[in-house]
């Protein structure tokens, strides 16, 4: 079994690193394709708006024992009650029938009675929903209003929280990306859009933001460290942050998706379309897309946005120089052959220290961070009198400090 926590450890220390930042073009291209597909879906196929937007009546019969020929029977019953137009009926969970028709208005009761007779159920057990024609419009207006208010508030909060507009912009782009892709998926698969799914879409924004906040928090922490130590470029620090939060992102996403999955399963098999299913479908799609975008879109975009900043350019130059020199140093001193892994470097672990990334030309960071203390050594570890392995720093006694090159050589 693949040891998840082992992968987590490797990602954390940077031993195993997925290059999220360096391959940003790939992710951008992938998302562009997604968005293009979404746009095709939205504009070519169109969205399948539910009855709430069109106006009409929906009847729900429970406890129907005989559902054979339900379509014909429902149509006949609706026609009998004097409602014209199309009749759409579906069977849900084996014993429930959902009948959609034009707005029943005054004939609501008549339709209920007719349906009850046709399907042999008690009229009081029939649920009827009547939706006026202007309802959908007001719902859409509200949703758009909520969307705008939410986006404004979120930009404000992000700008205050992260204190840089670039992070806010990257987060917002990810947000819009999620929304477009989710709506596109709805269009492509022909899922019905109801007011519930609209609320779901809006909730997605919250989740997407949540994911982004988690990742950006770590990015900020790491980059502050990088700026302090001047060892890594901004891109490297950000990439390490994404890798370090990857396990957490996966875990949080899975945990958020699991209850929704449960609702989806129960909803599809038993409940049929309704508030529960609509909301959870939108959330399921949206949370999955949101997790993707916070890792693959938001962070690379943030790095790209900040790439041109003089301070960061200077930092990168310095880090590159430093790393190159340290790589040279480690090559010359055999004790350090590729043992330590700096952030965002080789995808394979040892020996191949020459795997160089586009934006991270340096190979190695010989830095005595705590998590690298135990990095394996290729040469035989020293052993004490009892034959137990002794850590390199403890080998010659506790006072032996890690060696750093003198200041003139740094």
């Amino acid at each position, binding site marked *: 079994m693949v040891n998840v926590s082992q992968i987590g450890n490797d990602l954390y220390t940077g031993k195993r690193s997925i290059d999220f930042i360096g391959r940003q073009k790939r992710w951008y291209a992938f998302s562009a394709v997604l968005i293009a597909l979404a746009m095709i879906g939205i504009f070519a196929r169109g969205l399948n708006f539910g009855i709430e937007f069109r106006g009409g009546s929906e009847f729900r019969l429970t406890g129907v024992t005989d559902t054979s020929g339900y379509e014909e029977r429902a149509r006949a019953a609706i026609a009998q009650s004097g409602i014209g137009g199309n009749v759409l009926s579906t069977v849900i969970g084996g014993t429930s029938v959902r009948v959609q028709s034009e707005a029943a208005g005054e004939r609501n009761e008549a339709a209920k009675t007719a349906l009850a007779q046709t399907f042999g159920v008690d009229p009081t057990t029939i649920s009827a929903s009547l939706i006026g024609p202007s309802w959908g419009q007001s719902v859409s207006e509200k949703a758009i209003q*909520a969307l705008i208010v939410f986006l404004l508030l979120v930009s404000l909060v992000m700008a205050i929280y992260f204190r840089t507009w670039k992070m806010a912009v990257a987060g917002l782009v990810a947000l819009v990306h999620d929304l477009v892709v989710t709506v596109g998926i709805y269009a492509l698969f022909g899922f019905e859009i109801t*007011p519930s799914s609209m609320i779901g879409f*809006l909730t997605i924004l919250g989740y997407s933001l949540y994911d982004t906040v988690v990742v950006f928090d770590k990015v900020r922490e790491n980059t502050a460290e990088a700026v302090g130590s001047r060892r890594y470029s901004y891109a490297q620090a950000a990439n390490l942050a994404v890798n370090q939060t990857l396990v957490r992102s996966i875990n949080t996403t899975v945990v958020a998706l699991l*209850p929704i999955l449960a*609702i989806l399963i129960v909803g599809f098999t038993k409940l049929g379309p309704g508030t529960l299913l609509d909301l959870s479908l939108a959330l399921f799609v949206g949370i999955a897309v949101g997790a993707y975008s916070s890792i693959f879109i938001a962070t690379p975009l943030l790095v790209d946005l900040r790439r041109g900043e003089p301070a960061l350019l200077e930092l990168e130059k310095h880090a590159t120089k430093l790393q190159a020199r340290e790589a040279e140093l480690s090559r010359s001193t055999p004790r350090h052959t590729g043992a330590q892994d700096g952030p965002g470097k080789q995808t394979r672990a040892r020996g191949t220290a020459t795997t160089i990334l586009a934006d991270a030309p340096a190979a190695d960071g010989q830095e005595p961070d705590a998590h690298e203390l135990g990095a394996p050594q290729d040469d035989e570890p020293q052993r004490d009198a009892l034959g137990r392995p002794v850590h390199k720093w403890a080998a010659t006694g506790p006072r032996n400090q890690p060696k750093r090159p003198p200041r003139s050589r740094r």
Partner: protein
Amino acid sequence: MARNPRTRGARRTLWVLLALVAVLFAGIGAAHRWGTAELTPKLGLDLEGGTQMVLEPVLADPTAPISAGQLDKARDIIAQRVDSNGVAEAEVTTQGGRNIVISIPGTPDARTLNQIRKPSQLRFRPVLLTGPGIPVTDPGATSTSTDGATATSAPTATTPKPVFTMDPPATSAPATTNNAIVPPALAAQTTPPTDPATTGATGATGESTATAPSTASPAPTDASDFAWITQEIQTEFAQLDCSKAGAVNDFVDEPTRALVTCSTDRSEKYILGPVELDGTDIEDATSGYQLSANGQPTTIVEVRLDFTDVGATKFTNVTSRLFALKASDETRNRFAIVLDKQVISAPSTNAVIANGQASITGQFTIESARELAQQLKFGALPMSFTLQTQDDISPTLGKEQLALGLLAGFFGLLLVVAYSMVQYRMLGLVTVASLVVAAVGAYGVLTLLGWSHNVRLTMAGVTGVIVSIGVTADSFIVYFERIRDEVREGRPLVTAVDAGWSRAKRTILAADAVNLLAAVVLYLLAASNVRGFAFTLGVMTLIDLAVVVLFTHPLVSILAHTRFFGGGHRLSGLDPERLGAKVRYVGRGRFSAPAVQADGRA
């Protein structure tokens, strides 16, 4: 557990949480014992069964926007109608600054529903005949019921004995003062109460009434003519019992014909002449203390009514006719203000009001005057209601939905528990315990809010709760991962927990703030019943925060001191070796560096 002084703070926090939960449930218990609270959260209509209608008020000019005041007025109108139809436990609320939501348990009949959503109209009609709202069956009770009518109507603010006077009142100041102190004599008081039988009414109200139906003049000369009272109307009037719910539903509000109706407090019933003015004739209505002739406020509360130019002309004609009747017929001197077929006030006319500025005085309190003024003001804009949605949910469907929703929630919870056990081993149990605490808290809070703020759990709300399982578990994961990070850095567990907490706290706070923000925005702007989703999501976010701070963190820091977790047992989920912390400083200049390393890095 040993009384470890290092965990004293954490233990104290746990006690605080326990006390909070105890207080919460004690509150529910007390509210249940001495109040009306139930021991379960209140269910929404879609789970309980019932009818929910969403109405949108539309002004005569459909493009004109509805102001908040108008919406409130519209809600009051609807609530009034619901009450007058005797619908029990109905709720009328506004939603999203635009809609009115009416929730009625059970299945009301179609006629009641139509009554509730008919257009609203304010009209002025002259009074022809009055009687007590509740038919008097005992013929001997004439005098007592007279007293009763006076007694009941005097203190209730809704039926003051109001008078129309000129505004400014200088011209008719003496009359107003008189009338304010001694309510003007009304037909109901001067004449013996009418018996419900036709004969009683005819006999009681004097010779003019007696002759009117019998002559049945085909062409009434003016709006106050008794010729409006046909035999049919007389029968309706006699049989009308205002105390019955929906008593006036059957009567047709035809502007050109007489109308039989009740006052809104059901204490009086009327036959009214045809409509002479309507709401559109009103320019404005205000309330306040009447000013005396020298401009000083007096203690008399009045409702000032400004008519438009057209309205002023009409009103002049009406008042001059009614004022002329003052001496001969106190009943027909009154001019009724009718909102939705029900009389909200029927002041006597004490002057000919020619300047279009009338003042109504009587036994008003400042609140009742304001209420009347608002009714008049918003009555100036006739409203109709368009039916946006109507949902009839059968109780069986609601129950089924609730059961399935809970089933889904249970499975969701199981999945989350299983996943966190796999990921975090025994630490996953902390997740389970925290989720249980969160669930208990949510149950308590929703129950208490159901009682205090009438929060009802709808299907959307259930969805919100289920979805929030994920959100809540998220914050545990953020926290645990942080601890693991710190362990990987080589920290011993006890310090790793503290360091991890101080870092995770920020992230959890930020994430919860974002969720709360989303919930609040959705709640305020949601146009449909999915509001419940936003509400429970918001409540659960707050509960999540409380649970993480008051339960999960203290629990983990106590557990960090146990041998099992602190010693890094293989199943604890915090085993430093599994987490790749290959070197730990163990003090005295020594590091613990486990021998097994080769298999650790595949």
